[in-house]
């Protein structure tokens, strides 16, 4: 205990030091914001490139470009979504392709046939230009990641779908079905796979998952009694089709006629 006394001076000093240290460190040290400046900087060609970043991206870009520019098929004329009032050549081609390719999956999985395909005009994002068709073409036409789905719809709801088309007056892609619009804007002679629409029957309709969930106000799709997700992206449907065909057929048949 005697020995401790000799440390007293040191201890006192130490306690003072600690006290002061804690006073200062415990006092609020917060900074206050005094000025804020906000602006938006556009990223343009005036900005330099960063060689390190450029070199990193290049091999990936080259690989993608090589793959995207891979020629898959030949298109004899430009297919455009602004080519018709009730149907367009590109729209009908897309619906035909989805019906055909979707059926391969649907038959294998469910042992059933898809009766018709209905898509949205707005979902076609580019033209199919005359000449070589590449993977890039498929990405441009179909940039979205939508899946092909099959919905089981009652005949009543198919009729709703037809009325939607007449009301919307847009050339939505359609395959497997034809009908006529009368002078008083009502449908007649609705044929599905060549047979008259039976309002009591259940039909299998191929569409994309966006529309199946009621996108573009296609509320009739929400009334489906069954839904099958084919887990097959529409873009991949298109790419697989392009790989299969040599020359793209140009659909010229009339599916919706006006009296």
């Amino acid at each position, binding site marked *: 205990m005697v020995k401790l006394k*000799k440390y007293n*001076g*040191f201890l006192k*000093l*130490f306690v*003072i*030091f600690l006290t*002061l*240290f804690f006073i*200062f*460190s415990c006092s*609020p*040290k*917060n*900074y*206050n*914001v*005094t*000025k*804020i*400046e*906000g*602006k*938006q*900087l*556009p*990223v*343009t*060609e005036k*900005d*330099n*490139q*960063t060689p*390190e*970043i*450029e070199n*990193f*991206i290049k091999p*990936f*870009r080259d*690989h*993608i470009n090589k*793959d*995207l520019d891979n020629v898959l098929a030949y298109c004899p004329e430009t297919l455009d979504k602004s080519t018709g009032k009730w149907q367009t050549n590109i729209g009908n081609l897309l619906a035909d392709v989805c019906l055909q390719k979707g059926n391969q999956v649907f038959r294998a999985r469910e042992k059933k046939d898809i009766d018709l395909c209905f898509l949205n005009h707005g979902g076609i994002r580019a033209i199919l230009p005359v000449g070589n068709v590449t993977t890039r073409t498929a*990405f441009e036409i179909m*940039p979205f*990641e939508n899946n092909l789905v099959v919905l089981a719809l009652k005949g009543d709801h198919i009729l709703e779908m037809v009325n939607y088309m007449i009301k919307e007056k847009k050339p939505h892609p359609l395959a497997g079905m034809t009908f006529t619009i009368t002078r008083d804007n009502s449908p007649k002679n609705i044929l599905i796979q060549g047979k008259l629409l039976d309002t009591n029957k259940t039909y299998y309709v191929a569409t994309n*998952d966006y529309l199946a*969930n009621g996108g573009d106000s296609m509320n009739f799709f929400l009334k489906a009694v069954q839904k099958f997700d084919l887990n097959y992206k529409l873009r991949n449907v298109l790419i697989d089709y392009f790989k299969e065909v040599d020359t793209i057929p140009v659909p010229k048949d009339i599916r919706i006629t006006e009296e």
Partner: protein
Amino acid sequence: MKRREFIEKTAASTALLSLGLSLSSFETNEIKHLTVLHTNDVHSHIDPFPADDPRNPNKGGVSRRAALIETIRKENPNVLLLDAGDIFQGTPYFNYYGGELEFKLMSMMKYDASTIGNHDFDNGLDGLYAQMPHASFEFICSNYDFKNTIMNGLVKPYKIFNKNGIKVGVFGLGIELDGLVDKKMYKETVYNNPVEIAQDITQLLKKEEKCDLVICLSHLGYKYKEDATKICDLKLAELTQNIDLIIGGHTHTFLDKPTIVKNKAGENVLVNQVGCYGINLGRIDFYFDKNKSHTNQGKSIIV
């Protein structure tokens, strides 16, 4: 005895020295400058738009953005670089590589953090998880609960960055997933009410953690004209307090300048969003000092 004397002297002088230092550090009123840079909804736009693009010719591009950020870092090294989500989806880079390039490039540009957008679920939780090793920055989201998913532990509810002595609390808010993202993609991710979460987190960041600045990385969207009841950044700003800056995304909103909103306590909150596709870089400069007399004078906002 010599040893003891030595200890006593050293201790005394150390104490005096620390005292002197800590006193002097309170005398000078040092002004600190923090530059917050931000992007949102870049959507895999790694290359600039081509010169013949009808909408955004020659705009954007990661390489140029990196150069712009580097120039700013040279001017002020005290930079916080943030993204408000939807890093994924929009170009073949994503379709081919699943987001690997996006994360690697953001890491090269030294992003500090990003929140999670709805499109970041586009390859499912597994797809996001697979890319996590490529990101050296933080993922921050406070209202998505990933507890029962593969992403458990990989997303922080908030993070405090110490930027040259400035404590910056960053938290994140994600949009409601139901109806927007397929359930099979987000699986057992739980969406919690963003306003309630924001109130709790900001209380924690400002009052308990004593952050000098609180930033919300939001993917809620700027404003919804067609659905006035839907939570958005402007509403979030009004309904909360203790947030200094909301960096938004999702709605691809191009603003002429950041919006100033009065919060619940009547204080100004900055809400910003810079469109999409890496066409713009947002820049908000904050100047701080420790002079107490400023506290009640408020701050000047130049936008």
